[in-house]
């Protein structure tokens, strides 16, 4: 381990780093190519993958974003694995690709070296049947325990509509990894007060002190990518992508269309870029306020919860004014946006931003001056920096551990290059730091919305998209409220995509919760878990249709329609 030194590349430019990486990996790869401006893919034999990843991870600071498995048997009778490593400061993604023949699906695991690979490897093992040698945790990640070991749903020869096997044969049996005979077990979820979505944490405790923790999730996983790959056209996917999550749906849609635009080489109009940024920031504020409310609720501070959600009502109303929907805006299409933000509504938007800023400042002061709130979060759930790097955490969690990354600035997209904003960074790594990052970001987002409203350029909303080139690949990346949301898209034949991989930020942020829990109390467990703002809908890629029922009684379809119509009229 002597050679495990870190080489700082933070100040270097993109070209420089590209040549350094070339030099570093010399002899280990066979060929390389650059499908898009910000993605370079190295091809390497599988024996070299561990060494290549080790060398790439030695740079300070790089992180493993995602491992994309692919069934490429139509092209070359092989399966492929692409390890995508992010060089944040250089706006660069480096993919390392290896091909595994169908009859010999084995590769050395890197999960012991890079913790971020842990879930990715387990997922590829479930879905493609690739064996990772040395992977300690052999449990299923996304598939249920009773799923047969030889059925891998993401192979292309596994039909998307094949029925699930007879699950009545055995009950889903949880196999704990830890052998803690002298400890007591507390199950936290899937049905627990703090779990808005199903996840199971198994806490091993001594008294109330957590000694070890295990995770089991993906109860609602249903293979949305498979549906997209098999059946939908390019422009249908944004709508299903937006329904991956009820909170950060627009980031998924944007991320997807950016990937497609990138691989097809489409430049979208300025107005569309600004509108996308506007909606993304509105979504960020909405998501952060939701989180603040939930965090207050978990800490027993219902007043903060109610006030925060009251402000969130304003922002959702603003979204409704601008797009006609409170959530799930349905704005994105490949090549631009669908709906314009009309001029007379911009004034309303400015007013409501002012109102929100005023009310939010009050809430902010109330929260940071509340001594108990600070005591409950300070020094709780500390994620050390080296662990944060190893797990490849993103978003506010990373920024709370002192990692200065923000996709909006680093891999700039939409209109962010023309806008000015600060990225709040704290170094403590505890829940308080994460909270402060989120609290500060709301102010930044409000600023951004005002800037966008001022500088919104004219022009068309979208360009005409003729053809999407076949067999090309790209990544689309968006800073979701929870962090980097990365979509890998590979185009296929017949105007369909061949592979779509969604790696939501929570997918990177939930695994380290295991480390964050250890040593703290049962009382801290909910807030520690909530501090990463876990979005299981994103992580597990199931569909959530966000239903905001503001009404007191259950309405019939007609009534609801009438009411919506009335509301729309009022806004218009």
């Amino acid at each position, binding site marked *: 381990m002597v050679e495990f030194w870190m080489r700082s590349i933070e100040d270097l430019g993109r070209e420089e780093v590209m040549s350094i990486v070339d030099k570093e990996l010399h002899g280990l790869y066979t060929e390389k190519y650059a499908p898009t401006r910000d993605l370079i893919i190295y091809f390497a034999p599988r024996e070299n993958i561990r060494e290549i990843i080790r060398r790439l991870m030695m740079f300070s600071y790089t992180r493993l974003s995602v491992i994309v498995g692919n069934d490429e048997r139509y092209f070359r009778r092989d399966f492929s694995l692409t390890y995508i490593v992010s060089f944040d400061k250089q706006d660069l993604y480096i993919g390392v690709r290896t091909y595994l023949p169908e009859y010999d699906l084995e590769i050395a695991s890197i999960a012991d070296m890079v913790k971020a690979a842990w879930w990715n490897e387990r997922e590829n093992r479930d879905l493609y049947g690739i064996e990772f040698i040395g992977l300690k945790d052999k449990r299923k990640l996304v598939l249920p325990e009773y799923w047969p070991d030889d059925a891998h749903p993401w192979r292309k020869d596994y039909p998307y509509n094949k029925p699930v096997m007879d699950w009545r044969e055995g009950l889903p049996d949880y196999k704990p990894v830890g052998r803690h005979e002298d400890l*007591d*077990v*507390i199950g936290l979820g899937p049905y*627990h*007060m*703090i779990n808005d979505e199903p996840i199971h944490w198994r806490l091993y*405790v001594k*008294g*109330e002190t957590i000694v070890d923790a295990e995770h089991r999730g993906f109860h609602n996983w249903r293979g949305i990518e498979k549906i997209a790959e098999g059946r939908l056209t390019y422009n249908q996917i944004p709508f299903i992508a937006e329904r991956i999550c009820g909170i950060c749906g627009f980031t998924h849609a944007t991320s997807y269309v950016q990937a497609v635009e990138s691989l097809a080489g489409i430049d979208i109009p300025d107005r569309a870029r600004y509108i996308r940024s506007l909606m993304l920031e509105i979504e960020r504020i909405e998501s952060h306020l939701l989180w603040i409310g939930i965090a*207050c*609720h*978990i*800490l*027993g*501070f*219902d*007043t*903060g*919860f*109610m*006030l925060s959600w*009251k402000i969130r009502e304003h922002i959702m109303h603003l979204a409704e004014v601008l797009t006609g929907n409170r959530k799930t805006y349905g704005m994105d299409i490949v090549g631009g946006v669908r709906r314009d933000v009309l001029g007379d509504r911009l004034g309303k938007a400015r007013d409501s931003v002012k109102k929100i800023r005023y009310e939010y400042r009050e809430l902010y002061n109330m929260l940071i001056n*509340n001594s*108990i*709130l600070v*005591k*409950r979060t300070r020094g709780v759930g500390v994620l050390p920096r080296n662990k944060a790097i190893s797990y490849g955490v993103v978003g506010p969690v990373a920024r709370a551990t002192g990692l200065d990354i923000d996709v909006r600035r680093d891999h700039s997209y939409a209109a962010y290059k023309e806008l000015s904003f600060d990225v709040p960074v704290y170094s403590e790594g505890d829940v308080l730091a994460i909270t402060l990052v989120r609290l500060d970001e709301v102010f930044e987002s409000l600023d951004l919305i005002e800037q966008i409203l001022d500088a919104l350029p004219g022009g068309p909303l979208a360009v005409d998209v003729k053809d999407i080139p076949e067999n090309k690949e790209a990544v689309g990346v968006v800073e979701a409220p929870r962090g980097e949301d990365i979509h890998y898209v590979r185009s296929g034949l017949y105007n369909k995509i061949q592979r779509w991989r969604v790696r939501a930020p929570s997918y990177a942020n939930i695994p380290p919760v295991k480390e964050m829990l250890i040593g703290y*109390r*049962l*009382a*801290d*467990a*909910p807030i520690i878990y909530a501090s990463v703002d876990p979005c299981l809908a994103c992580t597990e890629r199931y569909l959530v249709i966000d239903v905001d029922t503001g009404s007191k009684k259950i309405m019939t379809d007609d009534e609801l329609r009438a009411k919506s119509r009335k509301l729309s009229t009022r806004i218009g």
Partner: protein
Amino acid sequence: MNECLLEMIWVIVLILLGAFIAPILDGLRRKIRAKIQRRIGPPLLQTFYDLSKLFNLQPVLPFKNMFIVVSPYIAFATLLVLSAAVPLPYVPGFSTVFDAITLLYTLLFVSVLVVLLGLALPNPYSNAGSTREALTITVFEVFIAFTIVGIAYSMKTLNLYGLAVLYGFPKNYLRISTLFLSASLFILAYIESAYTPFDMGEAETEVLGGPYLEFSGRYYGLFLYALLLKRYILLSLPVSLVLVSPIAMMLRAFIPEPLLSVVVLGVFVLFLFITMSVYSVVEALYPRYRVDLAFKPLILASVIPFIGLVMGWLGW
């Protein structure tokens, strides 16, 4: 015999008052919290509706065990009888025979019953809740001890009725020690009632209601009612001694004896509502403590009754 009959009637009246006003006070608390949180909030009688709903539900319990079935009834019956012991000046009830230590220890008995139930069930959440409850009781006892001793030293009695009457005398009321001890009584009632910063025991988002987790239907309803009664009894201590007693002392000159009791009762109810409103405002402003964080403030708070005790020694 007329007096005895009167005493019996007052015991029944006080029990009925307790049974009726405890849920209303909770309704008031919810209403005021809602106002602070800019909500409309439930109606004042919502807690009654909740209770009646619980009493009509079919109970689901993990075990059909006599210990589990009987305990809610014991808790409820004990607190119901105890609500006739709330100290009220010139209102004879059980308070004529109860002393403060017994009152607090009987409340403790009910808490211990709940703690035991929580520990008896094989559920770590209720176990953890019970443990927290027990620890909070233990640590807060320092405060209670100084308060009791301070009051016993200053007023020379711990008999509840005696306290309720004696507290109002200007020579007792207008003292610095009384000021501190009165403040301690208000704090005692707040903390013992497990209002928000101190509701570690049944923290819903952490331990899912703690000891009450496995209870449902009328058994949970009884526990809930018992909890409300406990809060009412605790609240009645400072309200009656500090607020009602001096007013009763003043009214004594103008109103004849039998009518005085009724008037005192009215004043008492009025002040209950006012105090509850203040408590609700305080409650809405704080999140919950973690149990180890709560140790320090719980211990530190005992400085207040201690100052009261020292002032009592000095004769101030």
